[in-house]
């Protein structure tokens, strides 16, 4: 079986690019180097959407690509305020077409960041982001902190390739040359590996971060004996570890973005790292979930000026999460049609948003049947990016890589489908 090396895994924000796969009969048969979740993606699943479909009388009818694309274009062109959402599991080349489509339609375009690290972006827009690429952690970091993140479950190869377990130029001993701290509301599998585990009460991270900042800046005397369920001695201990590190890093996840206070939590965490700069070298990095959520934010930023939740109703980009993010327009019942690409909001949005999404005309582009295809009006199957189609993706630290095409596919790529929909929309609007 021919082996393809240096494969870039298209699952999570780690974007591991040292994967090897063996291909036989135009299918990936063996995967090495990937974590359990990445391997599952590369090996694939039996269920694929076999044909484009249009829902008629409550049931799906199979049809041609042409018909489905035309129907999709009709739905979107007729809408007054279409929502184009998802994007994070496809390549940048598709994102570019999606953004142009949103601009032409005067619609709202948003990606999964709005339910993931959108709050991080908002915090960054307040205070900035002292960060680095993952290799800096691998080569320099002697203190690794995971805060509200559980890489053992969500980013399987993160510690081995980039952080605690990895070996680097200045840390040739790997784990032996580093300390691991985990802060979480429960002792996750990642926490079990830590040199220091700090258990915080739910929704109290903000207080703990603020307390740490006070201690770091020399005001330990104002801190009570316990903050957010954490004894003061633990906080003093952690503050000392951070100040004495040669290079510390905080990786943070949904524990900070999805709990109460959201972007305020991140702002405190970033400010803590800025405070630590007075003493030593420190960095902070969000653990991005989907493999190309970062890519969409990058493309959207350089093309529109803003990273997500962009509303083109005025002809130019209007950015205001809280007003223009997907869950905002859904919960206000503002959008009257939706195009979902490379994500599954029916599975991952609150029920209230999903209920409304099911009511409006809905076009879905995806390789696999999922909960959003279940409620769709038009379903268009696409080739799997990173397996059946090549293209660009950005890792969680914004390093761009090119995904490979490993096998051939009978399906059109996301990029091609979107270009054809755009073409039809322009025809309908008399702009072609």
């Amino acid at each position: 079986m021919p082996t393809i090396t240096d494969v870039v895994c298209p699952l999570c924000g780690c974007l591991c690019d040292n994967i090897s796969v063996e291909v036989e009969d135009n299918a990936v048969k063996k995967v090495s180097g990937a974590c359990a979740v990445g391997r599952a993606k590369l090996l694939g699943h039996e269920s694929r959407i076999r044909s484009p479909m249009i829902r008629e009388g409550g049931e799906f009818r199979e049809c041609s690509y042409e018909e489905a694309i035309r129907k999709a274009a009709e739905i979107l062109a007729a809408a007054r305020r279409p929502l184009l959402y998802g994007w994070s599991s496809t390549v940048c080349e598709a994102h570019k077409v999606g953004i142009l489509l949103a601009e032409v339609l005067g619609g709202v375009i948003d990606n999964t960041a709005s339910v993931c690290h959108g709050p991080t972006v908002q915090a960054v827009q307040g205070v900035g982001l002292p960060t680095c690429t993952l290799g800096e952690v691998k080569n320099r970091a002697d203190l690794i902190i995971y805060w509200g993140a559980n890489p053992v479950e969500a980013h399987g190869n993160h510690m081995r390739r980039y952080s605690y377990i990895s070996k680097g130029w200045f840390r040739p001993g790997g784990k032996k040359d580093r300390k691991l701290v985990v802060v979480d509301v429960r002792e996750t599998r990642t926490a079990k590996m830590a040199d220091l585990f700090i258990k915080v009460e739910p929704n109290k991270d903000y207080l703990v971060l603020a307390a740490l900042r006070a201690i770091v800046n020399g005001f330990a005397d104002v801190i009570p004996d316990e903050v957010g369920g954490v004894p003061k001695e633990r906080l003093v201990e952690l503050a000392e570890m951070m100040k004495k590190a040669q290079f510390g890093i905080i990786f943070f996840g949904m524990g900070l973005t999805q709990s109460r206070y959201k972007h305020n939590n991140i702002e405190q965490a970033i400010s803590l790292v800025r405070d630590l700069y007075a003493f030593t070298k420190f960095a902070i990095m969000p653990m991005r979930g989907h493999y190309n959520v970062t890519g969409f934010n990058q493309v959207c930023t350089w093309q529109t000026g803003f990273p997500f939740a962009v509303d083109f109703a005025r002809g130019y980009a209007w950015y205001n999460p809280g007003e223009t993010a997907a869950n905002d327009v859904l919960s206000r019942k503002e959008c009257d049609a939706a195009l979902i690409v490379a994500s599954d909001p029916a599975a991952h949005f609150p029920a209230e948003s999903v209920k409304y999404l099911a009511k409006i005309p809905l076009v879905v582009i995806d390789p696999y049947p999922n909960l959003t295809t279940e409620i769709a009006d038009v379903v268009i199957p696409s080739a799997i990016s990173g397996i059946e189609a090549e293209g660009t993706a950005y890792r969680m630290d914004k390093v761009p890589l090119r995904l490979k095409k490993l096998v051939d596919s009978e399906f059109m790529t996301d990029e091609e489908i979107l270009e054809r929909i755009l073409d039809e929309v322009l025809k309908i609007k008399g702009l072609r």
Partner: protein
Amino acid sequence: MKLITGRTIEQGQNLENKLSEEYQKAVAVCELNEDDMKEIGVSEGENVKVKTQFGEIVVVAKKASANPKGIAFIPMGPWANAVIGGDTHGVGMPQFKGIDAEVEKTSEKVLPVKELMKSLGV
């Protein structure tokens, strides 16, 4: 109790397999602290009903050695989201973690995903 939702390995492995039994087994569960389970009167594998101000959902109870008392964990997915609210408090992000919840033993069945969607009026 406080409800949190999030990723697990099994949930991640079935991202493209959501209409399957494996996905339901991975995601229609609620991880609870042993002492909480005793208080609720439920053993591993039995069903619990989780109620928040946004809704209620029946899932399978699972023992979590790591959860402190008072914390219930449901993997991200449609069962968890049945009890999560859509308001983003002006930020664009709903609150997926740290929700006040009640967990009680129930004899009701766990709805398979298609029925779950129907029951939500979807």
